[in-house]
């Protein structure tokens, strides 16, 4: 399947990736090639076959809803890329 440059731009936007124009060209070619290979899956007869999304056969697992102490609070804060004291800074969601 051939992937156009426009589709590459759309996918990149969905994936929150900013690609250079060289990257766009390269990925369009490589993705087309990979999808050509993957297209062989369409030849497999899967009528009546249930998809496999997990392999263990385990069902839902529940646990008691109890508060557990978290010792890593400082480490979590220290990992935050931008902060002011105990305030963790994030970029604004809405345009000014």
């Amino acid at each position: 399947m051939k992937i156009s440059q426009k589709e590459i731009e759309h996918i990149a936007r969905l994936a929150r990736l900013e690609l250079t124009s060289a990257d766009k060209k390269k990925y369009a070619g490589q993705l087309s090639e990979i999808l050509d290979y993957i297209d062989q899956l369409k030849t497999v007869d899967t009528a009546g076959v249930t998809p496999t999304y997990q392999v263990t056969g385990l069902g839902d697992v529940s646990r008691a809803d109890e508060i557990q102490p978290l010792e890593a609070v400082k480490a979590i804060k220290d990992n935050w890329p931008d902060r002011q004291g105990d305030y963790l800074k994030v970029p604004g969601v809405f345009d000014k």
Partner: protein
Amino acid sequence: MSIQGTVCSIQGFRLAVRGYSSLNTAYCSPNTQNMDLNQLTIKAAHEGLRKKEFSASELLATCFQQLQKWEPKLNAYITLNEAGAEKAAQAVDRRIASGEEISYLAGLPFGVKDAICTEGLRSTGGAKILDNYLPPYDATVIRKIRASGGVIIGKNNCDAFGHGASNENSDYGPVKNPWDQTKVPGGSSGGSAAAVATDSCFYAVAEDTGGSIRQPASFCGVTGLKPSYGRNSRYGIMPMASSLDTVGPIAKTAWDAAAIMETMAGFDPRDSTTFNQPAPRYTKEIERPVKGLKLGLPKEYFAAGLDAEHERAIRAAISELESLGVEVKEVSLPHTRYAVATYYIIVPSEDSANLARLDGIRYGVRESADSLFEVYANSRQSGLPAEVKRRIMIGTFALSHGYYDAYYTQAAKVRTLIKRDFTEVFKEVDALVTPVSPFSPFPLGAKADDPLAMYLADIYLIPASLSGVCGLSVPCGFTARNLPIGLQLIGPSLGEEVVLRLGHQYQAVTDWHQQKPKLN
């Protein structure tokens, strides 16, 4: 060069050893013997520690000496844990001195793949976006090993977030194959395999989603186990494909892998996909005779594409197993040919969802920009290597509107057929014997720009991963150019005992696993 401050720390270790011996001279072996301590297996080193023939601090010092010799050639580590390792080793020495019984892994230095979280010890996953990331917690498997006295020597280089079969997709530079430094060590756990092969650690904890333990283990001539999905906790593993990811050991012998599994395996309330079944005493179980075990030889794995030298070595290994009383018969896994295509839809799909968390907001490197979109996009652009972006693109495409059913759902259905092949075949045989890789370690750069060729390197490894069964890679020969060849033993889900038993008893009658690369 990504290793920091190692020279002074090595001196620090010598001091630590001396300090130790002055307290307790009876523990110290002569200096001439020191050089070989790092070459011991877990089994032998554990015995030596128990009998007080040497100390954990000495083991650590010899491992660091070895690491210093090889590291400039290999680039197998991203971060070293000098201070932490020293403290951990000394703590074990105090326990031994006070007469405490210690477990197999106590006092033994080990490497941890950088895509596995280690509390307070930098874990980049091989990508710059996490260049400054200090995990607030240990992965469950690491917590268990640390609790039993394990000593983390450092974090092993890898393809970023497990994406690759050559270790060339690391932002911290490629790892070289210790047998031939112009060749790749395999991937994604290339640093782990190279480190174990050169004895800078006793074993390494790595992860395998589609061959990332087994293939580098075979390329570097060491033993690697991909456990069954759900056998070991994935908590604290940087996720790639959550329905395939497994954590397992790269070790010098199958016995050592069994000892590591005894410590790591089991249910974890923090990973609800782990089986609620206790880990067997693998080290005991693998001593049971293999006579009468039935081994299947899947004909699809010996078809066109398998290098002739490899096939000869595998066939010789099969004869060796037969001489141990194992029955071998040909079997069929008819959907094998669709495995790579299935994998390269399912894995990038899960991957693209998992990697969405790497956006520079809560941890890692955040690029500043005017809009939120640009903050995300710029952080990901500069922080993720090309192969990671490529997989995110494939996965996002496969999950996007209009393509989901044609690609993702269809791949999930074919996965059912591939898994069913294994279920059927394990009604007839106890394990399967196959090659690990269709070819020898390839030159650096040879496949770097051809993603599809790189994906096909894992053709014998991916079906087991999609099916959740276990696979062990053991050394079974060398090519004419002195590059290691690996044999894969595939067992059913929770069949680690069978493949480890076969591997252990094969290693009892062969010495491929004892060959060591030479430093030149």
